[in-house]
């Protein structure tokens, strides 16, 4: 079973509340849900949609087709091409009339139904949700309970009105003869699942890691992280400070980290660009920090509410001078939780900046998760103990060590002074221009940590047979679509597997043993220039000229990848 419901309309019509409600209900019934939003960068008007994909198998990417379209505005006709013969279109000809006929057209007087039950215009949303659930034979009591719960005791009357409105919707849906049911959701598919948004998952990962400081400047699609953490400030003892700009964000976070709390910041490409000098400072003062870079299409302002994988090389290269950093791109929403939690441990262990590279697809999507395991995110601080501090008579903040990592003390301890200097410094952290001895040693010390990091980073994950004759290579959020594309191709008899990378920097040659002349590999990326393909070439010397690219601001669907793969084959492989 694989069903997609799409709620389409203008910004401000409440698409998100219908979408959120439906997603949550299916998750509670134990179904796998992947919900993504496609919106324009505006507060009112325009054409937006919220797509909910429901399946009995895990799904991590949007589908190319729509089974039920709730069309709340005229522009919804742009979804015509996604409809199948038996798709259902729910609309209200009084609000938006359509000249096309495609699938099963269900004209519902939604506004009338809402007002008949004593509701207002806003409750069209409740009508829409109940119509969809009615058509799918979803237990009405579950919807009613949800409505009552969400309005709570504070607004019991509105809750009850919504229940009456929902009854009208159900009745209407039941009267309608579809000529065959779409799907039957009368029974649960399993135990209730969590429904988590990408930004929430990052924030939860940060909380699991014991993060206690975030300074950030609002920028789509990263803002949700700060917003969620602000709601937990009191209960989780976390300072959430909206800074005056991203330069302040990273410098504040570095200050907080220097003082000893786990600290992070989050932005998109433009804000990260402003942070770059601060990133280099983190490299120089060897102060841990986690930076979430939620990518969106650029250059410059680009498309604020759309998705892309355009900042990989930027994340890898950002910052003047030479210093190690880690770049991790989680593969799905669950991955956002673990990657963020792990980022804090890596940052502390090596005293480095760690960049968690997400994108709008992850940030603004919701997915079901069976259970999150905070125990996999055990907090390890790598700080000197009281006893070690007592014994360290001559503490050096930047002690030259074999691993390159200097033992870390925090300012405020009664035994030693702790320093940070953006100038080249000696082991005590004091400014130096000793070019003969100290400068080369410090450069080597800082960069020596890379060899430790290389051992730390995870190899790519495989989906499909290790003996497959062909390989699709991907990274980050394209995982869901790629995995499905591989399943589709394998079902068609193609011998193909997915090799997917989450840990992107530093890259280790040894993880590319799967590449050889006899086995063609295609790199699939949400960008134009093939940034990861180029990075692989740089690391391994192997030319990766089979590529599938997408750069229109929308995420890949599995079908697009399958088609692009077949086209590539027709052309003889190389683009």
């Amino acid at each position, binding site marked *: 079973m694989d069903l997609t419901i799409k709620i389409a309309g203008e910004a401000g019509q409440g698409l998100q509340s219908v979408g959120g409600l439906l997603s949550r209900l299916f998750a*509670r019934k134990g179904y796998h849900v992947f919900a993504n939003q496609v919106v324009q960068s505006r507060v009112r008007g325009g054409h937006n949609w919220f797509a909910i994909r429901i399946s009995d198998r895990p799904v991590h990417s949007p589908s190319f087709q729509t089974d039920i379209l709730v069309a709340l505005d005229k522009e919804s006709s742009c979804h015509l091409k996604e409809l199948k013969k038996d798709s259902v279109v729910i609309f209200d000809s009084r609000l938006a009339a359509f000249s096309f006929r495609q699938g099963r057209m269900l004209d519902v007087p939604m506004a009338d139904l809402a007002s008949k039950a004593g509701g207002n215009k806003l409750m069209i949303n409740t009508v829409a949700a109940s119509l969809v659930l009615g058509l799918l034979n979803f237990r009405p009591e579950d919807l009613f309970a949800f409505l009552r719960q969400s309005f709570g005791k504070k607004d019991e009357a509105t809750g009850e009105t919504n229940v009456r409105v929902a009854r009208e919707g159900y009745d209407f849906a039941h009267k309608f003869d579809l000529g065959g049911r779409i799907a039957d959701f009368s029974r649960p598919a399993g135990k209730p699942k969590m429904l988590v948004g990408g930004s929430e998952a990052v924030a*939860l990962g940060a909380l699991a890691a014991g993060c206690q400081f975030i300074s950030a400047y609002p920028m789509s699609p990263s803002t949700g992280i700060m917003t969620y953490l602000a709601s937990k400030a009191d209960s989780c003892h976390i300072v959430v400070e909206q800074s005056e700009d991203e330069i302040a964000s990273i410098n504040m976070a570095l200050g907080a980290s220097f003082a000893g709390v786990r600290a992070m910041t989050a932005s998109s490409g433009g804000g990260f660009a402003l942070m770059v000098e601060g990133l280099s400072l983190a490299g120089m003062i060897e102060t841990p920090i986690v930076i979430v870079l939620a990518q969106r299409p650029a250059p410059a302002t680009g498309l604020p509410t759309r998705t892309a994988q355009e900042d990989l090389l930027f994340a890898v290269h950002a910052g003047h001078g030479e210093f190690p950093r880690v770049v991790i791109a989680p593969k799905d929403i669950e991955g956002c939780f673990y990657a963020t939690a792990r980022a804090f441990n890596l940052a502390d262990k090596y005293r480095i900046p760690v960049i968690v590279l997400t994108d709008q697809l992850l940030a603004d999507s919701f997915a079901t998760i069976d259970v999150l395991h905070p125990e996999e995110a055990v907090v390890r601080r790598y700080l000197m103990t009281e006893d070690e501090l007592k014994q360290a008579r001559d503490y050096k903040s930047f002690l030259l060590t074999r691993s390159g990592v200097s033992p870390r003390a*925090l*300012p405020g301890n009664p035994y030693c002074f702790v320093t940070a*200097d953006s100038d080249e410094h000696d082991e005590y952290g004091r400014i130096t221009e000793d070019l003969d001895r100290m400068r080369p040693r410090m450069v080597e010390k800082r960069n020596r940590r890379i060899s430790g990091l290389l051992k730390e980073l995870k190899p790519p994950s495989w989906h499909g047979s290790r003996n497959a004759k062909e390989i699709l290579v991907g990274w980050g959020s394209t995982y869901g679509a790629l995995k499905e594309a591989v399943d589709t191709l394998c079902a068609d008899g193609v011998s193909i597997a997915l090799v997917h990378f989450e840990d992107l920097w530093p890259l280790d040659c040894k993880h590319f043993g799967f590449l050889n002349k006899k086995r063609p590999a295609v790199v699939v990326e949400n960008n134009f220039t093939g940034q990861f393909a180029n990075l692989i070439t740089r690391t391994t010397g192997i030319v990766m000229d089979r590529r599938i690219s997408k750069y229109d601001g929308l995420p890949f669907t599995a079908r697009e990848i399958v088609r692009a793969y077949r086209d590539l084959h027709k052309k003889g492989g190389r683009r």
Partner: protein
Amino acid sequence: MTRLEDLGNFETAWCPGCGNFGILDALKDALVKLDLDMHKTVLVSGIGQAAKEPQYLNCNFFNGLHGRAIPAATGIKLANKDLHVIVTSGDGDIYGEGGNHFIHAIRRNIDITVIVHDNQIYGLTKGQASPTSDPGFVTKVQPRGVINEPVHPLAMAIALGAGFVARSFSGDKGHLSSMIQQAVAFKGFSLVDVLQPCLTFNKKNNFAWYKQRIRPLPQDYDSHNKVWAFEKALQWGDTIPVGIIYRDGRSTYEDACGLMNEKSILSQTPDPAKLVEIFEEFF
């Protein structure tokens, strides 16, 4: 107990006779008189000749990026409110490159002290105009003289709601030490703008020039009067007033945010059980 000799005696990279020496001496004097536990104190600076000051003290320090001392200090103080956080940097650093942070730090009212070595010149880059250079001041980059209106840091700070705004002179160690002591003791954002000659690049605003002009505030001056404060803050020319120009109390960010009333954020360990509770909200 903090003794003068514990603060150390470092070789500096300053020119002989530099106004920075006077500021360092006064700061040491203030630290001793305040008897500040140096292990609980962090000096924060940006980049420039003035910003090297923390390097010449035995202390915890964060010598960060040019213009970014204040955000770093903000992060340090919010993470561990038990630390005394003192920013010491130049006019180019705080009022120029870091101008935006200066504005917003005052709005936040974090309990930090900002000491600005204000010599009206960029020294480390060898003599360009600073945001506080007088109009008409000639440099190699401004050969026809400075055109821009100077920043009026004290008036700006008062307008933004700073609770402690003072001016002093690097040539008067006693006065400057007293200003620093009161600024550090003040609860909230405190600014000490220090008039400081640059013997090498600013031939105009030298020791004699300042000595002729600086005047203590009148006996009956009421530093809580905002109108008087603006008048004194903007006074510049034949007479330059020094002292606590403005003083007012309002609640600090640390108190208002409600997260660290009892303990610093650093000493509050997150409770893993909370997370399990939070997960429940996602079902």
